[in-house]
């Protein structure tokens, strides 16, 4: 069982920054995220896009902002449960919370902060009649363990970065890699497109375009897919079919936790501390709604800060607390590091 002070659901920018603010108050955090890496939308959707409204950064790429946040919170040693979704939440008799993921990982926390953004990113599934039957029987939407595909025949469908990147990566592992896309043009980083072209020329990637997968075949496991190209239909033998058509966010299980939901967002009682209708559960960042709500990263940072103060007061009732400035108090990491401002020099000038 994982024990922590604040369990943060969602490892996007708001969730990550909450770790820092909690750390200043000596509160330990653990984060759960459905994606296999931290950063949320910034990493998954637009890592190379510049953001122009982060205070103090005239321009910063989304991926770089996530890297910086990870660097900033490292000293507070947050724990991560990645690639799993928070499925059930139970408020225990002593007022603490138990959150169990879809993989059965149990988390126990004194407070819960939902920083889930637009929700859990789920793969967009192609509309193939029997695709659900073959899920985990040869149809995969994520590649978590590339070794799984060693010496296997793999078909990837899609025209974006992930289809290109995984085709390149798996071309060194799988026995056969076929990439299928509806168009001849791919949308991705130039070097990825060029690399796929090179691997195609070397015969390491079999490219079928413009074409579409129209069916899946196999007894108990994928053994072939049906492809339509130039009006002709044919089967291609394969062990795996990996459709990579991007991800779409869904609020998912969080919607069943008894929280007040409005327009796919969690209603928070006020903008004092972003607590939900269940005391001890907070919602911060894009996932919440309240009068005047703005879905901006910088607003998420502010909400995370107020949430942490509220959790501190909740866990330490009656304890006097004065807001401290990092320039004055420095930062004491849980890893034993200390960062502080240099003392001013006081010296006589003769």
């Amino acid at each position, binding site marked *: 069982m994982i024990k922590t002070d604040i369990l943060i659901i969602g490892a996007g920018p708001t969730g990550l920054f909450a770790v820092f603010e909690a750390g200043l108050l000596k509160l330990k955090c653990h984060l759960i995220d459905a994606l296999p890496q931290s950063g949320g939308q910034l990493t998954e959707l*637009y890592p190379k896009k510049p953001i122009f409204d982060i205070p103090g950064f005239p321009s910063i790429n989304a991926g770089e902002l996530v890297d910086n946040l990870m660097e900033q919170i490292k000293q507070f040693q947050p724990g991560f449960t990645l690639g799993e979704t928070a499925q059930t939440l139970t408020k225990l008799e002593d007022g603490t919370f138990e959150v169990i993921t879809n993989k059965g990982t149990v988390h126990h926390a004194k407070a819960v902060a939902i920083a889930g953004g637009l*929700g859990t990113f789920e793969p967009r599934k192609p509309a193939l009649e029997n695709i659900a039957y073959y899920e985990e029987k040869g149809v995969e939407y994520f590649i978590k363990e590339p070794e799984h595909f060693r010496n296997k025949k793999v078909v990837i469908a899609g*025209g974006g970065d992930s289809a290109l990147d995984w085709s390149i990566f798996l071309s060194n592992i799988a026995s056969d890699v076929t990439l299928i896309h509806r168009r001849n*043009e791919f*949308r991705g980083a130039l070097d990825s497109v060029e690399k796929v072209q090179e691997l195609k020329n070397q015969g390491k990637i079999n490219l079928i375009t413009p074409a579409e997968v129209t069916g899946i075949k196999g007894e108990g496991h994928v053994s072939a897919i049906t492809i339509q190209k130039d009006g002709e239909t044919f089967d291609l033998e394969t062990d795996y079919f990996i459709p990579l058509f*991007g991800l*779409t966010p869904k609020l998912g299980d969080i919607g069943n936790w008894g929280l007040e939901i409005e327009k*796919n967002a969690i209603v928070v009682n006020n903008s004092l501390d972003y607590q939900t209708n269940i005391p001890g559960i907070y919602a911060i960042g894009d996932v919440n709604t309240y009068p005047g709500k703005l879905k901006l990263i910088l607003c998420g940072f502010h909400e995370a800060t107020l949430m942490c103060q509220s959790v501190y007061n909740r866990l330490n009732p009656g304890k006097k607390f004065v807001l401290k400035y990092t320039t004055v108090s420095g930062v004491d990491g849980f890893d034993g590091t200390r960062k502080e401002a240099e003392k001013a020099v006081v010296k006589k000038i003769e």
Partner: protein
Amino acid sequence: MQDINLKITDRNGVMHEIVAPTDMSMNLMEVIRSYELAEEGTIGVCGGMAMCASCQVYVVDGAEKLLKMGEEEDAMLSEAFHVQDNSRLGCQIHITSEIDGLEVAVAPYP
């Protein structure tokens, strides 16, 4: 600056006559969103970067008023679902006086 008239049919098949401003650098996705013609969380998911197709619309009337599709929009639509010949991404259609009278229907999502 003038306002323009748009006809937008929502995902339930209800047609709305909308007056949209041309001086707020808005796009069609933002108009649909601000008039709450699609449920929040199912429109403009990527924020308007032509990366999700949640703002896909079918152009019913006035296609000739629109600027040609850009590469990013074209590529996104090649991966999207429910795509028809008259599909466009709302986030790539800027609200200008030229598109006055445009008529669209919001496509299903996801």
